[in-house]
């Protein structure tokens, strides 16, 4: 059974016909070709598939595409503006906030949402917020550092 849904992804509207069982992640990756969001655990634990749905973080691997009908999705591909990396992305580069990079799309999306909600988070707030994003490479120290650097840089 398929259904036509309308998704606004990174500001662009798409009408997509999807089977009702298709996950939002698969829809983004395979119907829209946005492969930035990754599937790690597949059960909503690791956070590699994190996207923003109307500005709120969700695990797109356990959300059906049809649930996002009529709503706005932000993926990692939508963070940079005019080819310029978002301050969070730049900070992850400068501070070694990633290694293999497979969790990074989810990390930077979550970190952007964090700074949108709490522009100058304490380390404790960062840890609380980022709990749903696993990273096996960095041991998290440089992720915390990156977010600290991004917050400083974003400050007006």
């Amino acid at each position, binding site marked *: 059974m398929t259904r036509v849904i309308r998704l606004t992804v990174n500001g662009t509207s798409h009408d997509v016909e999807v089977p009702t069982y298709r996950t939002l992640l698969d829809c983004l990756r395979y119907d829209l070709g946005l492969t*930035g969001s990754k*599937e790690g655990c597949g059960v909503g*634990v690791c956070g590699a598939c994190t996207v923003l749905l109307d500005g709120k973080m969700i695990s797109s691997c356990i959300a059906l595409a049809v649930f996002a009908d009529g709503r706005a999705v932000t993926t990692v591909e939508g963070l940079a503006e005019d080819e310029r990396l978002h301050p969070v992305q730049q900070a992850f580069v400068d501070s070694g906030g990633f290694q*293999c990079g497979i969790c990074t799309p989810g990390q930077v999306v979550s970190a952007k949402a964090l700074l949108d909600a709490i522009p100058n988070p304490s380390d404790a707030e960062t*840890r609380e917020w980022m*709990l749903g994003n696993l990273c096996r490479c960095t*041991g*998290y120290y440089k992720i915390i550092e990156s977010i600290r650097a991004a917050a400083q840089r974003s400050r007006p």
Partner: protein
Amino acid sequence: MAHRVVGKPIGRLDGIEKVSGEARYSGDVTLPGLVWGKTLRSPLPHARILRIDTSRAKALAGVLAVLTAQDLPNILVGRRMFDMPLLARDRVRFIGERVAAVAALDPDIAEEALALIDVEYEDLPAVFDPVEAIKVGAPVLHDDPGAYEGAPPERPHPNVQSVLRFKLGDVEAGFREADRVFEHTFRTQLAHQGYLEPHAGVVAIDEDGRVQVWASNKMPFRLKELLSLALQLPPAQIRVNLTPIGGDFGGKGSVMDLPLAYHLARATGRPVKMIMRYTEELMAGNPRHPAVITLRTGVDKDGRIVARRVRALFNSGAYAAFKPAPSVNLGGAGMGAGVYRIPHLLIESFCVYSNNIPCGHARSPGEPQMVFAGESHMDMIARELSLDPAELRRRNLLRDGDVLANGHHLEHVRAGDTLEAALKASNWSEPKGPWIGRGAAMTHRHIGVGFTNARVRLETDGTVTLSVALPDTGTGAHLVLRQVVAEVLGLPLDEVEIEVVTTDDFTTDSGVGGSRVTHTGGRAAYHAAENLREQIGAEAARLGAPATSLAAIAQAAARAGRTLEATHFYDAKAHGTVTSFTAQVAEVSVDPQTGQVTVRRFTTAHDVGTIINPIGHQGQIEGGFVQGLGYALMEEVKTEDGRISTLSLGDVKLPTIQDIPPLTTVILEDPVGPGPFNAKAIGEGSISAVAPAIANAVADACGARILDLPITAEKVYFALRAKAKAPAPSLKERRS
């Protein structure tokens, strides 16, 4: 020597596409007409296959092919010992073994098709514990393992895959010199590498009949060889196209599903993508071996080790196929000697077949297991001798000229300095509150060897392109190699680009692994850049007039039909005389009511070479440490009679951002490594000693000695209860 680019804290410029989502991993590769492959896996640990009926699956709309062993050549695969069928033929030996493969238009249809395949099995007796597996009369997994290609000859029991021995002196005579002898047995858990990218691959047969492969595999040239064997094709007919790898940690070196993807591509005439679900990773990846390790150590009256005997049983699971070393064993077994001079030593390591998931390599293979056992054992001996555990270590540390268990002579031994640095930074001798403890542990790790090709070319715009066929596993090695080339050529970093080429572009390369890339890739890049520098000098001299720029030189050369380009093949065959020491101290508190262990702070000290990129270097230390922390306290892939009961990544309990303690890193830089600019290695230095440091700290805090990993609150709680009831020591101690 002052460097311009080497040693500078340069961020991860090599991975801007990773933060933007543009990086294409093998699971992201797409091709016209691509279809999806999935495998049906055995639900039984040991059984005969009586019948497979694929007719209902084949009839499902959208299914393009269904294969069983009957459709494939009778080929066995492996990395060194070839004992694993592509699909089970007549018999399954573990839960998760591949029984059939399906190709379908989308992954959901493929999964639906799997459910329509009917397999009739007849149970066979199974064995799960390695101690049981090598008893007389145990169920035998393989009828004639010695007949497998690559099988080591020694086989004391049909369920033994391999035996690896390390021997120094005369161990029996050594024990006769001992005043006291201590023996302890430890167990370590089954643990997944935990990379967040499950194995993924795409195989396409192009119009020329060549097999194009994109795979999460860290050794492209070995993969090409292994696929050539598995597919019975000449190597030249296979091209491995490199993609970034979403975490390796030792686990991404096998052919995994790629031969099946090839056969599905043949059967369907379409490119085939296969991505393991994480559930499949946990039931049929190639995780870290669980182990049962017994150490017996004799010491003299001054607390000096005179003899040690180590027996390790590694539960290797149903196949030996995932172990890459010629020994088909784990080199980490040699760490049974620890960082100590032991005149009389015998280590025997057995890899044992059982009806469990086949195990493979994981970061520092065999060492976290062996170092947990060895360094816990050292503390237990110190306690019995009423010595400060640091003092017992001091008395026995390796020194210049000593010999490792594998026979290598050591120079520039900084074991003592490294230990003292860790003790100092951790306030080892400061008073502690109640239920707080400190524990130390040490290890060392070789500087990796292998062979790498690097090519550098001066472009007509004056920039330099460095070409390698080393995949990016995330370590930052590509940035390190660019820094090396920029340093040699006196260029700014952004004028050296890296180009990742395919297996068509070089003849060979040992790939990524074993802490080798900074050394082998770095030296290949270094020498290639030196050669290019000479060529540039010669070309400038030929021009006569002082050259205005590299671009002018390159353009002049181009006009004369010359390309300024150099390739260097660097081959480091044997480990040298230098190693890298690690000393770590954990400070923990134990909750007396619940047994919960909290790591209050952790100190890690490393004896390293020249650091080429401090950010990447520190990233390796931190990442390895947190993997060690998970291994120590929480991670476990649990099995019940061969069935994995932790089938989601949430159940395996990888450390989260909330689990990391304050970390103090101490660096002892000693530029004596074999790498470029005297670099050493760091990738595997911080993982192995974490668990024993924490175990020793827990014992120091509350007297509970945990002999099996992970150190969960439950185990500490019951150990505390047992201690309260029966204060008699449970340690087995004998006088010889």
